[in-house]
Every structure is written in C-alpha cells, then in structure tokens.
C-alpha cells in the first residue's frame, strides 16, 4: 500500500472572478520509504499539491489517500488527528516559536496529539542529538543559525513518528552548503527509519539527489521519473530530460 496516493487531484480557486486551476487532475503514488522531490516553476501547483497532501486544504475534486485512508471523508477533527500522528511538516521559514527553546519547539506537536510527555522528551533528546544539536537544546531560535533552526524543525517534524514528511522548500532559506547538509540529514533519516519524504524544491541540484522527481507544469503532472543513482550525473541528466 502506498503511503500517499493522489487520485485526480484538482484544486480551483476563484481569483478576481477568474477560475485559477492550481491543480488539474494529478494522479500519483508515493511508496513507503521513498524520497521524492516535486519541482516546477512558480505557480505550477507544487505548494497546493503539498497542502492537499498534508490535509491542510481540501481539493475541489479528486482524492487524497494516506496509508489507504480516504481523507476526503474525514471531518476536520480526524484530519487534524491524522496530521499530528502521520504527517510531519518542514517549512521554508522554519516556523519555530520564538519564545520556546529548541527542545520545547520539538515537543510542540505532542501537546496536541496527547502523546506521553516523558517518552516524547526522551525521543526529542535523541532526535536533537542526531541533528547535532545536543548542546543547543535549551537555546531559543534567535540564538541558533538558520541551518540549526531548520534542523530543529526537522526534529519537530519527526517527533510524532510520522509515516510521511512534507517539506515546502525546506532548503530555501539557507546557503548552499547548509542546504547540502540538511538534505544529507533528511536522506539519512529516510534511509534509516524508512520515513517517506515529499519535498518541494526549486533547486534542481538538490532535487537530483532524490529517488524520484515529480515535475508539475501549470497544475498538471508533466513528468514523474525515478533517479537511478541519486546525486550522480545520471540523476542530473534525468532531471535535465524532465526540465
């Protein structure tokens, strides 16, 4: 069973009395343990697809199945529960709460899922150590570099032991070196714990290090290619063929 299945996913907006087709009948499956990148120009529907997949937005038509569950049939309460138990989010601008320490930020999702706080704290410690932030647990976001903040955000996305992590330009706010480091970190987690990653990026070099590259154009699925050897010339070549 795929972790995520999108069936004829369609999202229309009405903007200035004109219908905007942000997504137009996109169908695809993301298998468990995959590391997929979504690429496309600005306005191609990448973020809308991520919002629908993350159950933050209901599509105009089509279905979103998460671990086989048709999420369109669920009420807001169940969707919120699924978000807290199955999905982790990483955002471009980190979205850490400035008044909380790194540790408290990582623990935040557990406040709403009703998980055991003590076990959660141990897990948060392990995650922050894995992120190389063992010495920074008590620091507030303002005391951390951009890369460190995003590592806290990655730890936060993993605290609820999700099956799917969605990233919206997670390397968009950091320099190239840090972006490389963050991607390596996510790939390692993906390999070691089999968590599925679906990452939106406009950086083709980073996308080339994914297992799979999904290309959207004007709201439609333009290409969906597996990368044989991620991060190699072959990968980049595959991407170039897509672009």
């Amino acid at each position, binding site marked *: 069973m795929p972790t995520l299945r999108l069936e004829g996913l369609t999202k229309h907006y009405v903007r200035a009395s004109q219908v905007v087709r942000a997504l137009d009948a996109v169908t695809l499956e993301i298998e468990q343990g995959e590391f997929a990148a979504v690429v496309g120009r600005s306005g191609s529907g990448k973020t809308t697809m991520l*919002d629908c997949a*993350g159950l*933050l*937005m209901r599509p105009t038509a089509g279905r979103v199945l998460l671990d086989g569950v048709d999420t369109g049939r669920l009420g*807001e*309460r169940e969707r*919120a*529960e699924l*978000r*807290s*138990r199955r999905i982790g*989010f990483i*955002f471009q601008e980190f*979205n850490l*709460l400035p008044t909380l320490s790194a540790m408290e930020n990582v623990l*935040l*999702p557990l*406040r*709403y*899922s009703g998980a055991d706080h003590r076990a959660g704290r141990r897990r948060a410690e392990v995650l922050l150590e894995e992120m190389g932030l063992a010495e920074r647990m008590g620091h507030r976001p303002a005391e951390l570099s951009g890369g460190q903040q995003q590592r806290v955000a990655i730890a*936060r996305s993993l605290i*609820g032991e999700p099956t799917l992590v969605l990233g919206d330009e997670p390397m968009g706010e950091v320099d190239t070196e840090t972006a490389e480091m963050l991607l390596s970190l996510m790939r390692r987690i993906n390999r070691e714990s089999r968590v599925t990653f679906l990452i939106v990026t406009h950086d083709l070099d980073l996308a080339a290090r994914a297992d799979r590259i999904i290309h959207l154009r004007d709201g439609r699925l333009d290409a969906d290619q597996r990368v044989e050897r991620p991060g190699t010339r072959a990968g980049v070549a595959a991407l170039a063929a897509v672009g």
Partner: protein
Amino acid sequence: MADANSSSGFGGGYMDLSTLDRIQRVQGVLAVSPGVYDTAKPGSASVVSMGVPDFIANFDPNWNRYSPLKLSLAGGRWVGDASRLEVDLGSSIAAEFHVRVGDTIALPVRPSDAQPGFVNHRFTVVGILKPTLTAPDSGAYVSLHDAQMIEGDSLPTALRGQVDPYQLITGAVVYAQPGVNLDSLATRINSAVPTVEATKPSTLVNAFKSGGAVFTVMTTAAALLALVIGGLSVVNTMLMSVSERVREIGLKKAIGARTHHILREFLAEAALIGLIGGVAGYLLGLVLTTLLNGSNPSGGLFLVTPGLTALAIGFAVALGAVAGLLPAIRAARMDPVRALRAQ
C-alpha cells in the same frame, strides 16, 4: 430600655426651653433632652466633604441611658451639667486638632474670613471619645450652658442682648417608651405641640437611603467604567496578539492542533492577563486602603476581607477570559494554509 429609640429634630430654628415640658407630656414619650447644636467650623459649610462636618453640641446624659449606640471615653471624663469651658471631643476632631486630654481648644474654630463680631472661647479638653465610625467622632460635647453660650455668640449682633440664650435650644431629642411606634409618636407631638416640628425616623431613614443610593450609583458607575475599559483593553491586547501570531496559529494547526486547542490556549492567555491585572489592581487597592485607613484617626474605614480578595481576583480572571473569547474564536477559526503564509 434597650429598645428605647430616639426621635430627634434639629430644624435650624430656635425653641424655648419650656417647650420640653409640653413634649414630655405627650403619650409614649419616655424622656426629652434639650439639644443645642452648632457648627464647630463656621464658614466651612460650603466646603464639600464626604464625612460629618465638625459640630458642637451639648452633652446629653440621656443618650447613653437610652440610645442603642453607646458612647464611651478613650480617656478622661465626661463633662457634667455644671461644667464650664470643658469639652469632650470625638476621636476625629481630637485627631484633627492634635489635642489630648488636658490640652485646650478654641471653639468654635475661628474661620479665616471671620466676621468682626466673631467670638470664641478656649475650652479645656477633659475627655476624648472612642471612635464610633459615625457622627459622634466629629462632635465637641460641652455642657448645655456652654452650648447655649456659643449659640448666643453666633446670634446676629442686633439680636444679642435682646434674647436670653440660656432659654433657647435648637432642638430636642425625644426618647420613646419601648414598643411605641416612632412615626406615630412624631405625629402626636406635632399635633400636641404646634410650635415644634418632630421629624419622623422613617423620613431620616429614607433620606439616608437616598443618600446611600447616590453613593451606590456613583461607585457602580465607576466600577462599570473600569469594567468596560479593562475589558476593552484585554480585547485589544488579545486581538493584537492574534494578528501578530497568525503564523504561529497556522503552524499549530498544521502540526495537529484542533480548534479547541487554539481556543483554550488563547482563552488561558486572556485569563492570565486578567489574573495579572487583577493581582496588580488588588495590591494597589490594598496599599491605598492601608494608607487611607492609616490616615483616618478613627480607624479602618475600608475593610479588605478574604472573600473580597477572592471576588476581586476571580472577577478579573473571568473578565479577562470573557474579553478574550472573541479574539480566541477568531484565532481558532483561522484557515491553516492562509495563516501559515501570512506575512
């Protein structure tokens, strides 16, 4: 005699001392005391004051015999009928003029704009009353003779010498026999002795009540104003807080917070603002009442009880929560996608 009551009348005019005998004969009257009542600080009547203005009155031995409110001395002795130029002072007036037993005080107090014919006398303080928190605290009690002497001095110059001040009184205090209806007694006195006007106790009570009603309206209005201002401040603070933290709300919803979680968090925050404001206001009030009570020589005017404390702080918390309700609902209903991308 514990339930003997007084029916007093000081109309501002004068009556002859012999009138007392006629009142004494009215059915139901237990005792009648002559009353001579004058201001202790002439010329200060136009000054607005919340308390009883200082007054000079003759000491009435019947008072402690028949009135439910007993007067007692904190020190010294009572003036007697034969006392001359001796005074017992109420606690407030004694404190106001910084006098103790054995000191002297000039009565009435000379006003700054005293008329040419103004006369006063130096009295020796022979006793000071215990605080009662009511009118007697502002009184200077002298013998009937001295009260009449002061009254005579205050007569217009043209009248002095023409009337005998020692036959004049400004009123009388009537003590009723137990079980007698005081309003009916006043009516009987008025018909039996047409030269006096007895005031019904119910009239006094009603006047007091209407005075109290004005005070209640004033304090309630002040409290309502504070309520509205306080409530709006919390609403404003919380609305600003919500609009400043739109992304935070979006994030929380994205990571699984449900509507009731957000609602609860913002309500708790509003209640906390109420609590902080309530405690700060309470402490300020405590300091103010302590200062006011300390400055009042007759003792504590304001009482801060544990019940009042709980009510004040509890009310502030509830006000905060109620005022925070609207902003909290606004926050809780936010669309996560829009909130996350808000600038």
